[in-house]
């Protein structure tokens, strides 16, 4: 009896430790993203970058929807709905990839400046690039979760990996929630 | 209580000793500007506080070690079980807090006084570059590599850099201001020299290479002497090509890298340069003539002499100088043999 209790307790404790570690990582990473925000306002002030608004709204919506499906995936795995979990996860990954295509493929290609064109170019490419790098790593994590999910490694009781990568994905979404108005909407042209 | 009275007396004694000692040592250079006088008053306050706090901590620790030392006969003797006192802690949080705020207030006043504006100030535009200082007097149309200043008149410097960050500092004036590149980052510095004499402006911000040698003379003279200097610069300056070339070279800081005494610096010396034979980085041997010198000024990287680094000299002298000016400079180099 004691040994079973012991494992549950230690899994619970591990869970608490891992969650705290993950959140501290977010806190740390947030400072880096915050530094880029400061860079944007310090160099450009209240200047609008005059980007393609339709494309901006499109990629923002894509990321938001992907966050929604990520949430569904996590809820479903904790409810034991394996099929739903896999479906939602696949949708999330596909939306993540389309976000990358939207920003790196379309926005970078169509922007009216390059990375070497003054402070606007530098700030824009750095901010979107750094965020895109995080999206890319998020997609990699989610793909690993998908692979393990297909191998039925997760149970409603034990699926911390799903929770962690979901939280990472939401964190990347939170960053974009701030970056979207800052890059596209704020300021005057 | 007896202990505290003795300690208090010792603290006061040591404070006085330390303070007098520090004052007697002569910690700071001469005060040659009115700002230096203001700033040194704040230094005095700091020195007083330093003397007191140093004595306070050191006397308490030393006294305790000597007077309350362990009894040799009781090797395992323990100290008294005192875990703390909130009252004391609050006192030594709040008192320093008050002192700190007061010092900051004095600091703010001191800063404001050093920045007092005199509308009659003499304007000088200062340009820093790797590795020279150049001083423009827009009121007189003079450019010089020596900062000439009349005594007892405030001077307003507008500082800018052509390449990296430098810093304008004259220790005797106490004030310092970084010199930044960029048209929108021109910085201002004001001070009033109160003593005639020769000083040095030093570059205080690491600017690569010959940073250590980025010094220029500062001459503080009487109003009359200053006027004489202005007249001389404006009127009686010889107009032959060699002198014009020398003046151009001097004002653009060429001598920071190219010496006139025959010793190579960051760049080759100009003494005896004309007509000599040099080996280039490419291995090719060339004769230093008018054509080579022209190319070396306009496009310095094209023919680097062996043993000297590339990319050091600015690339834009071709745009900066007229052909006439470059010819004058070559004439000047020619005259150095």
């Amino acid at each position, binding site marked *: 009896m004691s040994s079973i209790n012991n494992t549950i307790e230690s899994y619970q404790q591990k869970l608490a430790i891992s969650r705290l570690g993950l959140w501290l990582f977010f806190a740390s990473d947030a400072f880096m993203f915050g530094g880029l925000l400061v860079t944007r306002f310090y160099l450009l002030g209240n200047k609008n970058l005059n980007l393609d608004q339709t494309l901006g*709204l499109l990629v923002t919506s894509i990321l938001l929807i992907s966050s929604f499906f990520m949430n569904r995936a996590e809820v479903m795995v904790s409810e034991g709905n394996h099929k739903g979990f896999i479906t939602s996860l696949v949708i999330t990954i596909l939306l993540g990839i389309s976000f990358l295509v939207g920003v790196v493929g379309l926005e970078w290609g169509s922007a009216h400046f390059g990375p070497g064109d003054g402070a606007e170019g530098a700030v824009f490419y750095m901010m979107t690039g750094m965020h895109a790098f995080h999206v890319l790593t998020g997609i990699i994590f989610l793909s690993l979760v998908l692979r393990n999910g297909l191998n039925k490694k997760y149970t409603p009781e*034990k699926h911390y990996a799903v929770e962690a990568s979901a939280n990472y994905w*939401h964190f990347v979404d939170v960053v974009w*929630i701030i970056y979207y108005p800052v890059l596209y*909407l704020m300021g005057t042209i | 209580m007896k202990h505290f009275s003795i300690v208090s007396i010792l603290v006061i004694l040591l404070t006085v000793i330390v303070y007098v000692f520090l004052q007697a040592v002569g910690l700071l250079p001469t005060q040659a500007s009115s700002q230096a006088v203001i700033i040194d008053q704040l230094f005095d306050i700091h020195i007083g506080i330093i003397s007191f706090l140093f004595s306070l901590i050191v006397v308490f620790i030393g006294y305790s070690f000597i007077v309350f030392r362990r009894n040799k006969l009781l090797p395992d003797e323990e100290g008294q079980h005192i875990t703390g006192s909130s009252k004391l802690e609050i006192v030594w949080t709040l008192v320093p807090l008050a002192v700190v705020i007061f010092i900051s207030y004095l600091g703010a006043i001191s800063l404001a006084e050093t920045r007092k504006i005199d509308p009659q100030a003499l304007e000088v535009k200062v340009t820093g570059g790797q590795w020279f200082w150049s001083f423009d007097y827009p009121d007189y149309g003079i450019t010089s590599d020596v900062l000439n200043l009349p005594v007892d008149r405030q001077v307003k410097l507008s500082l800018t850099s052509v390449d990296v960050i430098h810093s304008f500092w004259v220790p005797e004036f106490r004030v310092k201001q970084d010199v930044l590149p960029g048209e929108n980052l021109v910085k201002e510095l004001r001070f009033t020299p109160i003593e005639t004499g020769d000083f040095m402006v030093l570059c205080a911000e690491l600017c690569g290479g010959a940073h250590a040698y980025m010094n220029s003379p500062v001459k503080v003279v009487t109003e009359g002497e200053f006027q004489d200097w202005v007249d001389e610069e404006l009127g009686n300056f010889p107009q032959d090509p060699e002198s014009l070339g020398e003046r151009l070279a001097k004002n653009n800081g060429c001598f920071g890298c190219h010496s006139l005494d025959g010793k190579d610096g960051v760049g080759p010396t100009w003494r005896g340069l004309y007509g000599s034979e040099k080996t280039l980085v490419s291995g090719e041997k060339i004769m230093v003539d008018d054509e080579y010198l022209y190319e070396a000024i306009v496009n310095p990287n094209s023919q680097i002499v062996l043993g000297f680094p590339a990319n050091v000299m600015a690339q834009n002298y071709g745009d900066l100088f007229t052909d006439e000016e470059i010819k004058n400079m070559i004439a000047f180099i020619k005259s150095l043999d």
Partner: protein
Amino acid sequence: MTKLSPLKRGVVIFIILGVLTAIEYYLGISDVPSILLWAIALIKMLLVLQFFMHINRVINPKKGGHE
């Protein structure tokens, strides 16, 4: 909000976020003061932190998930 099943709660939060984004977009292209955009972004951020990332799980580790 806590009474809803987790799946439904996700839908509700998503709809709120979507509406906020739409408002944000219209405010953004019509040149309003930035402070409004900051406010909306902040609300969106807090919603995601609370309902998608379950920030209270880290503060109170006994709660939520993996029961």
